[in-house]
């Protein structure tokens, strides 16, 4: 059963801190909310055998990925008493230090946001067909794999 209103979660390039700040700002009119919890994934400059990751290039099986994000969203709303939820993921190049994943949950009370956020992030890591090419400073690369 596929819902018609599947949103596009992907954004080209890094997710800016201004975008995140503005997203927080927009929630200040929702005065039933008492607790927000935000997860940000940031690209690490990992040192692998002496070579340093300078960026990750993200690709995705976009239709399936957006459907999976949608399923995760629906499951989270069913399990937890959330007021709202937003997910954004980068496509294309995201440099070390930049943000590639932004998950934002809000609820009247705090207990539920902790559980919900972890549930959502773990599901994204496990179930969504997104692929990451870790590009080193010398232009060689390796393929990222979630653990």
């Amino acid at each position, binding site marked *: 059963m596929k819902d018609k209103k599947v949103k596009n979660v992907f954004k080209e390039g890094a997710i800016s801190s201004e975008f995140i700040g503005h997203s927080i700002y927009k929630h200040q009119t929702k005065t039933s909310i008492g607790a927000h919890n935000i997860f940000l*994934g940031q690209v690490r400059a990992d040192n692998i055998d002496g070579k340093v990751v300078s960026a*990750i290039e*993200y*690709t*995705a*099986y976009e*239709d*399936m*990925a957006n*459907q999976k994000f949608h399923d995760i969203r629906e499951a989270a709303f069913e399990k937890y008493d959330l007021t709202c939820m937003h997910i954004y*993921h980068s496509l294309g190049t995201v440099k070390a230090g930049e943000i*590639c*994943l932004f998950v934002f949950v809000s609820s009247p009370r705090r207990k539920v946001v902790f559980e919900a956020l972890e549930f959502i*992030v773990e599901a*994204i*890591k*496990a*179930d*969504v*067909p*997104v*692929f*990451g*090419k870790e590009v080193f400073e010398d232009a060689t690369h390796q*393929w*990222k*794999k*979630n653990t």
Partner: protein
Amino acid sequence: MYITVKYFGQIAELTQKEEEALEFSGHQISGLLELLYDKYNGLESKDFQIAQNQELVSNNTKITGAEIALLPPFAGG
């Protein structure tokens, strides 16, 4: 029958394409895989899952046509 096969990430790097239409006369995913292993040297040793019409399937799933995708390990977030 013709099947659209999509490749992603490390798999697309190996096949050097993101998508192709293949003529296939078998019935199961495993048959399609044999055809792909013959065609792409090194594919058999790669780690990937298979989706049919955007749902993960196993090797003995029946091919119902439409879209097959070879998905290397997920790396979102």
